[in-house]
Structures are given as structure tokens and as C-alpha cells.
């Protein structure tokens, strides 16, 4: 069985290699991208259905102190996440064939997606933290490459660099967290760490998990390292789907869940996680409410939803978190792909440029409605069940302390705001008067390769909740649905009054801060970017004046010294004779004195 897991990881990797090094044909690239993804999806599904824990170690790398075991370990959690990753990746690959067909760099694009998938699977199946870290970093690289796919536009390349640097900032903490835990447990194997954490001191645990949390916050776009995610919308829409649903952001939550026993043993870390989650879920939801860019709405919603998962984790319910991760992966991928269809149709990201698409794009409308319903947590969509589980967990935890109560309240508030912004996006996109006259290029729906993944993804988005078969907690379920509908109702009431204008106007003066996501970017820019720039300038100046000065100075000194030497060869006969006579004089004096 371990061979299956290894194949699932390797196949997309080989696909990437084949796509990059293979023939320069779009057809070949498409096949080499789609087929391994499909096979991987099948293999991952097989692993998940088998439900048996599979593990195997390929080799042991002796490093002198702690050996690194290169191996895979498929737990139940890994198997499920692997299915999510491969399915979404497959959907994205198929969708991309239609979406990116006429793209000049389709080959490298699809190859990077394959590599991305492979790296995510490596993270998911890794048996060792170092191996996990390898996949983690490859994902960072791929996200950089894919977000910056249209690098000709300066803003895109900046967004890519931003994503790379912000996640890298977290990764530093992540790496040191790995070291702390690894040295604390005496092994980098995840199993060993989980079994040996009681031997570690609470301080080691807290420090290690907090450092890991930094990496998680970076990858899963949690406050305060969330700022890269909205900007990552610069990449192609399928990439957004991939990043938001299946790979990057899922990886952070997955790692916490995978190491959950360790985290559970560090209550301080969980509190920090809860605070981060509370801050992130409400802030991102409010920001989403004010955005005009459809993709940015979805991006902030991702932050918000991930924060809910993190909140569930902080409430010590890893299952609820993973459940929500799965459903969220399904419906968020669906939403992004639908958004891609819409954008493909109207050729703009802005909702002010949309409207009235309900009739033009019925399939898209239907599927996206499912997605929004899942996002709002309305039954019977999958989101209802998972969010209910998460809320229930948080509600359970709220009895334990004031802080947890505040977190729970925040989560409930978030549910209401989620209903509001989902409704707003839905209404602004599909209802109201058409903002654009019919586009000649794209009539009707998108191409089949784009539609089919959407339709296929709509099924789990709608039905995944039943698969897990956890009975809903009645109290929280009713409360959350009521809150969600309340938010939706307010937005609908405002929208009814004027169908052209943005319902976000009810935010009044708060709208601008919300739209700018509470100026976090500006604050970062003043707090970090500018000082760093100043420091860089100082370094450059130091390099110019001190280092270069030393180099130039040594050159000048050498010149001066050689000038001294050259003085003996300057062609002035008088100088020569002076030297000659002086030397003669010295000899004479010597002879007189010594003789």
C-alpha cells in the first residue's frame, strides 16, 4: 500500500517533469497534467477508502545527531486531506485546460500545478517533519511561481514576491519549531513526536508549537500574516482555487491537526491560536463585505473560514476543523471556479461590472448558488454540517473561560457577516440589471472543460456533509442558520431598495477601512517595510562608502606605494644621480666608520 501512496506523490511530480521537459505542445502538456492528477486522485481515494494506516520508510539519513527518515505515513487524516487535494487539483487541471488554453506559458503553468499537487501530497503523507518541510517549501516556491504567472504586470510580480516573503517569514518560525520539537523528542518522526511529547517540558512544547504556529499562520493566511492572500488574487483564477481550497492554506490547518496532540498539550499556544482565529474570522469577514472585487471577496472569505477552522482547533476539536477543511475545500474550489467562469464571461474582476448573469449563465448560477449556500452554512449544503461542528466545538469550549466565550461570540458574529457578504456577492453577480452589454466573444457558458469540473465539484459541495454523518447540534445549528439568514436578510433589504447600488453602502464611513482590510498593509509598510528600506539604504551606503571605500582606498594606497616605487624610474636623471650619490655616501660612511 505504501507503493500506492508513493505513486500518488510521485505521479504529479513526473507529470511536472514531463510537462517542463516534454514536447512543446499544448495537447501533450494537457494530457501530462491531467492524467497523473486523475491517477493520483484515484490512488488517494483508494487509500482513503482502505482506511488502513499505511506507513513505510524508504531510507534513513544519518545527520550525526538526529536521523531524518525519508518515508510516508498515511493516517486517516492524511488520506482524507489527500483526497481533497488530488480531487481539487484534478478539477483545477481540467478546468485550466479550458481556462488557460490560449495562454502562452500553459506548459510551465500546468507543470507547476502538478508540482504543487505533488508537494501538497508530500506534506500530507510525510512521516517525518523534515520531509514535510521539504514539501512545505516546494509549495511556497510553486505559489510564488503561479501567483506571478503573469509577471509582465509589475503588480502581479509584486504580489508573488509578497506571498513568497510573507510565507517565508512564517517558515522561518516553522523550521525552528521543527527543530525545537525534533530535538525535544529526539526524533523528527511525527509519530515519535506525538508519542513522546509528555517527556518534553511545557516550555519546549509551548515554544515549539508557537514557532510552528508562525509557519501555520503564514501558510494558512491567519492574522497577522494573512496579507499575502488577497494580493495572491493576481494569479490566474484556477490557481486561486487551488491555493485557497486544496493546497497552501489547507496545509497549515492540516499540520496543526496532524500534530494536534502536541498542540493540545500546549494550552498557551491554543489560546494564541484562538485569539488569532477570532481576530481573523471577523476582520476578514468584514473586509469581504466591503470588497468590490469578486475574487477578493472570496479571498477574505477564505481567511475567515480558515479562522473558523483554527477556532475549532483552538477549541480542541481537530475533527471539526478537518471536516470544515474538507467541505470548505470543496465549496471554495467550486466558488473560485465559478467566479473564474463569470470573470471569463465579463472580462472583469469587479462586481460593479457584473449583474444579471443569472439568465446568461444558468449552470454557473446554479453551481455557485450551491457554493454560496455552503459558505453561508445553510442546510443541506455541506458547509452547514461542518460549520455547525466547528461552532459546536467552540460553544463547548466557551464554557471553559471568558476568553473562549469571546471567541465563540466572535464566531457567531462572523456567521452573520458571512451571510451578509455571501448574499451581497450573489445578488451583485447574478441579479439586478446587466451591467455590461452582451459580450460577443463569450456567449453563454464557458467551454465544457471548465463547466464539467464545476458541476462535479458542486456534488461534494452540496452533499459532503452527509458523508460524514455527524448529527447536527440542534442549538448551534438553529442559531447559526438564523444569524446567517439575518445577515442575508439585511443585505437583501438594502439591495431591494436600489438594485444598482452596492448594498455595502450600509456600512457608511466604515466601508473604506473595511475595504482596505483595516489598513494592515499600511501599518506593515510603516512598521516593517520602510525601516527595512531605510536599513537597506544604510547598508548600501555602508557598502558604497565603507566597503567600497576600503577597496578603493587599498587601490589608491597601492597606487601611491607604486608611485613611490615608480619614483625611482621616473626618467629624471637627477633623481637617479641623487640616489646613486646618496648610496655611495652611505657606503663611504660605512667604510669610514667600520674601517
Amino acid at each position, binding site marked *: 500500500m505504501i507503493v500506492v501512496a508513493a505513486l500518488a506523490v510521485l505521479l504529479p511530480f513526473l507529470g511536472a517533469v514531463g510537462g517542463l521537459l516534454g514536447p512543446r505542445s499544448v495537447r501533450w502538456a494537457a494530457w501530462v497534467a491531467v492524467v497523473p492528477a486523475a491517477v493520483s486522485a484515484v490512488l488517494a481515494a483508494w487509500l482513503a477508502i482502505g482506511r488502513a494506516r499505511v506507513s513505510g520508510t524508504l531510507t534513513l539519513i544519518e545527520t550525526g545527531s538526529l536521523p531524518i527518515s525519508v518515508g510516508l505515513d498515511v493516517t486517516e487524516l492524511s488520506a482524507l486531506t489527500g483526497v481533497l487535494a488530488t480531487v481539487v487539483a484534478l478539477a483545477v487541471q481540467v478546468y485550466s485546460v479550458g481556462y488557460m488554453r490560449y495562454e502562452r506559458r500553459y506548459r510551465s503553468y500546468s507543470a507547476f500545478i502538478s508540482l504543487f499537487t505533488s508537494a501538497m501530497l508530500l506534506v500530507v503523507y510525510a512521516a517525518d517533519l523534515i520531509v514535510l518541510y521539504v514539501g512545505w517549501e516546494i509549495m511556497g516556491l510553486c505559489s510564488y511561481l503561479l501567483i506571478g504567472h503573469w509577471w509582465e504586470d509589475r503588480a502581479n510580480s509584486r504580489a508573488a514576491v509578497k506571498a513568497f516573503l510573507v510565507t517565508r517569514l512564517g517558515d522561518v518560525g516553522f523550521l525552528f519549531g521543527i527543530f525545537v520539537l525534533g530535538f525535544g523528542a529526539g526524533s523528527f518522526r511525527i509519530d515519535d513526536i506525538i508519542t513522546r511529547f509528555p517527556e518534553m517540558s511545557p516550555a519546549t512544547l509551548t515554544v515549539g508549537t508557537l514557532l510552528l504556529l508562525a509557519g501555520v499562520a503564514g501558510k494558512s493566511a491567519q492574522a497577522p500574516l494573512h496579507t499575502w492572500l488577497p494580493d495572491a488574487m493576481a494569479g490566474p483564477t484556477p490557481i486561486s482555487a487551488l491555493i485557497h481550497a486544496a493546497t497552501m492554506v489547507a496545509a497549515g490547518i492540516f499540520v496543526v491537526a496532524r500534530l494536534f496532540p502536541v498542540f493540545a498539550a500546549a494550552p498557551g499556544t491554543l489560546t494564541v491560536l484562538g485569539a488569532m482565529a477570532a481576530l481573523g474570522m471577523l476582520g476578514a469577514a468584514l473586509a469581504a463585505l466591503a470588497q468590490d472585487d469578486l475574487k477578493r471577496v472570496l479571498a477574505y472569505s477564505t481567511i475567515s473560514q480558515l479562522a473558523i477552522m483554527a477556532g475549532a482547533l483552538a477549541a480542541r476539536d481537530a475533527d471539526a476543523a478537518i471536516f470544515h477543511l474538507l467541505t470548505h475545500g470543496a465549496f471554495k474550489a467550486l466558488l473560485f471556479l465559478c467566479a473564474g467562469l463569470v470573470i471569463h464571461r465579463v472580462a472583469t474582476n469587479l462586481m460593479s461590472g457584473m449583474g444579471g448573469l443569472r439568465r446568461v449563465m444558468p449552470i454557473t448560477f446554479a453551481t455557485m448558488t450551491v457554493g454560496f449556500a455552503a459558505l453561508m452554512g445553510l442546510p443541506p449544503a455541506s458547509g452547514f454540517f461542518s460549520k455547525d461542528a466547528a461552532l459546536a466545538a467552540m460553544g463547548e469550549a466557551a464554557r471553559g473561560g471568558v476568553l473562549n466565550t469571546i471567541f465563540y461570540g466572535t464566531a457567531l458574529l462572523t456567521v452573520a457577516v458571512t451571510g451578509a457578504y455571501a448574499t451581497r456577492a450573489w445578488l451583485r453577480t447574478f441579479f439586478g440589471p446587466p451591467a455590461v452589454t452582451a459580450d460577443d466573444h463569450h456567449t453563454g457558458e464557458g467551454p465544457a472543460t471548465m463547466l464539467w469540473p464545476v458541476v462535479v465539484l458542486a456534488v461534494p459541495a452540496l452533499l459532503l456533509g452527509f458523508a460524514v454523518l455527524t448529527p447536527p447540534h440542534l442549538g448551534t445549528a438553529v442559531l447559526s442558520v438564523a444569524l446567517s439568514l439575518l445577515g442575508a436578510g439585511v443585505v437583501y433589504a438594502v439591495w431591494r431598495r436600489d438594485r444598482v447600488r452596492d448594498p455595502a453602502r450600509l456600512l457608511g464611513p466604515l466601508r473604506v477601512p473595511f475595504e482596505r482590510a483595516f489598513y494592515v498593509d499600511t501599518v506593515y509598510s510603516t512598521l516593517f517595510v520602510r525601516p527595512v528600506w531605510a536599513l537597506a539604504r544604510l547598508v548600501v551606503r555602508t557598502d558604497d562608502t565603507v566597503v567600497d571605500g576600503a577597496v578603493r582606498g587599498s587601490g589608491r594606497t597601492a597606487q601611491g606605494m607604486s608611485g613611490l616605487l615608480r619614483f625611482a624610474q621616473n626618467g*629624471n636623471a637627477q*633623481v637617479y644621480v*641623487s640616489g646613486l*650619490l*646618496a648610496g655611495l655616501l652611505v657606503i*663611504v660612511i660605512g667604510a669610514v666608520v667600520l674601517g
Partner: protein
Amino acid sequence: MNEAPSYLSPTGHEIVFLLLGVVAVGAALLVVTTRQVVHAALWLVVCLGALAGCYLVLTAEFVAWVQVLIYVGAVVVLLLFGIMLTRAPIGRSADLNSGNRVVAAVVALATAVVLVTVVADGFRHAYVDLSPAGPVKQGTAEAVGAAVFRYWVLPFEALSVLLLAALIGAIVLSRTDIRGR
């Protein structure tokens, strides 16, 4: 070489010689320090004249007049000729001394100190009686002529060849209608 008398009771010869020597050294100093090229040449005349006087005191009569004839009459005239051909200006020239001046002064001073020390050490007691009653009377034209043509004929002839060579060399160097190669 009998016992040398004291330095504190100079003879007439010594007084004359010292006066001439002071003139010669002073004029020589002016030769190397004056800022006017022509003045340097004229101070050189004074210096060489004083030296001729010294030779006379030292009984080298013939050499003294040869000195005047050749140096003052020919060499200095040639020098002045050269100075005028190289457009020496009237008045001071600022650039007669090169940048090497300090080094030169140090070297020259050191030379003077060393040599004076050495000769003072070596010839403190050397004395020669120049009074008419003394033994020395050998600088006459007859004596010099006899010496040149009796003992120094070969160097004399070699010198003649040298002079011829110098003559031809100077002519070749000076003529502008002889092209090199």
C-alpha cells in the same frame, strides 16, 4: 715634509689663499643658487678666476693661465653662447631649481660633512713650505712642458685623439643638415 707650524699663525700665502678660497666658494654657491642663468655663468667666471689665483699661490703658474685662457676665455663664452641660444630671459626665472632640491641639499651637505671629516682627519699635519726660500719651484712653463713631453707624451697624444673626437662629435650634433640614419 718637516714639522707643521700652528694653524694660528698663518703665513702670507695662506691668507691670500684663504681669501681666494672664500671668494671661490662663495661664487660657487651663487652659481648654484642664483635665479638668473646668465648671472650663474658670470659667477662661474669669478669662481674660476679665484681658483686660478689659488693655483698661482700654489706655484702652479702655467696651469693658472691655462685655466684663465681656456675656462674664462673659451668655456664660459661657450656657456654664455649656449644660454643665449636657449633663450635665457633677463631677470629671475622661477623654475631654475627642480623639485629635487631638498634631496640634493641633503646629499651635498652629507658629502661635504663626510669628506671634510675624512680629509681633516687625514691631512691635519700635512704642510708644505711655499716661501721663496722653500724647495718648491716647479710650476713654470718649462717644467710643465718638460714633464708633459718627457713623461706624459702618450696621454697627451691620446688626449689629442679625444679632442678630435669631441670636435667631430660636436659638429655632427650641431649640424641640422645631417639627417639621422
